């Protein structure tokens, strides 16, 4: 029996089934906008909002949507939330909007969101779906934050736009460029695997 409100669902997204480290969906925006911490946080918050909102609406309407039209319906719901986010960020945070560029509207086709809609929200009740959206969104934000911290500090010598490593620090240019993102993601995935393995042995 599934519980009506299950808080494990929330933690699931943050660590065990983390969207980036375990499901490995939505890597494109992670690679693209993790060059600076500010942009990464903007992206993370946008993803949390869209994921939670679309999970909520989709689990609300899951019983009235016939299965053969579910995918287009999901996409319409997701696109609506993404457009809302896009306009809001453009109106209130123009600098972040400029930096995120095309990756903001591209959240529509981000696999995490459709994946959670199809894989979770369309089969679970409203509360759990919201928790799942929040958990997955936070998991995404956390990891993109860690990746962008590494990349910005090593590749640019700054954190949140402020120089922290001094002026005679010679940055690793590669960290700011796409290969840097691959390197950090790979190392983080390896780290998670290691920790999981150790848990199993104990």
């Amino acid at each position, binding site marked *: 029996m599934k519980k009506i409100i299950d808080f494990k669902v929330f933690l699931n997204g943050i660590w065990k089934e983390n969207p980036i480290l375990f499901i490995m969906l939505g890597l494109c925006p992670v690679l693209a906008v993790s060059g600076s911490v500010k942009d990464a946080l903007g992206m993370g918050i946008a993803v949390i909002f869209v994921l939670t909102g679309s999970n909520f609406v989709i689990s609300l309407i899951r019983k009235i949507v016939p299965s053969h039209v579910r995918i287009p*319906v999901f996409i*319409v719901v997701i696109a609506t939330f993404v457009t809302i986010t896009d306009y809001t960020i453009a109106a209130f945070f123009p600098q972040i909007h400029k930096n995120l560029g095309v990756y903001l509207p591209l959240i529509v086709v981000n696999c995490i969101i459709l994946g959670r809609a199809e894989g979770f929200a369309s089969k679970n009740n409203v509360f759990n779906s919201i928790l799942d959206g929040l958990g997955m969104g936070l998991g995404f934000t956390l990891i993109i934050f860690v990746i962008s911290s590494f990349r910005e500090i090593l590749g640019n010598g700054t954190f949140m736009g402020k120089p922290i490593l001094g002026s005679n620090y010679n940055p690793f240019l590669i960290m*700011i*460029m796409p290969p840097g993102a691959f390197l950090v993601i790979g190392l983080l995935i390896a780290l998670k695997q290691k920790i999981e393995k150790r848990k199993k042995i104990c």
Partner: protein
Amino acid sequence: MNKKEFFIGIVVITFICALSGYLLSYIYKITMPRIEKIKKIKENKINKEIFPEGVNFIEKEMDGIKYISVLNLNDEEIGKIFEVKTLGYGGYIYLKVGIDKDMKIKGIKIKEHSETPGLGSKITENKFLDQFTGKTKDDIYLKKDNPNGKIDAVTGATISSRSVVESVRKLLEKIKEEK
């Protein structure tokens, strides 16, 4: 799938699309004035940076080319600002080029670009852009491309630099022809 299911599918999807359309039009109405305002402020700021002594900036058109005519306190035209689009390394670069009455470059600014952060994005820095000030069309070559050139490329971003240089020179040539 029978006919009834098919019909229900159509109804549901139509309903959801209509609802989403309504919601979006509402959000659009709230946010659009702000977005327009931000765009205008940004545009004005760039214009003012190129021509600090300009007072009035009026949009005009000459032989199909749009430009902004810059007027000073006495309503005399002291220069023009053109907008140029050029293909860089990572996509289009949108430039604003200010030209004074003697067909010399008054200043250029990058409005939008998608060059590599940390490399190509250095074309937006004044160290590169200030080199253009006061140059005429014969000077605007990269030093490494032409011995008469007076512009240093950004290290590691030759393609971005070259595309900016070429587009500015082409603009100057085009305007000269029409005069």
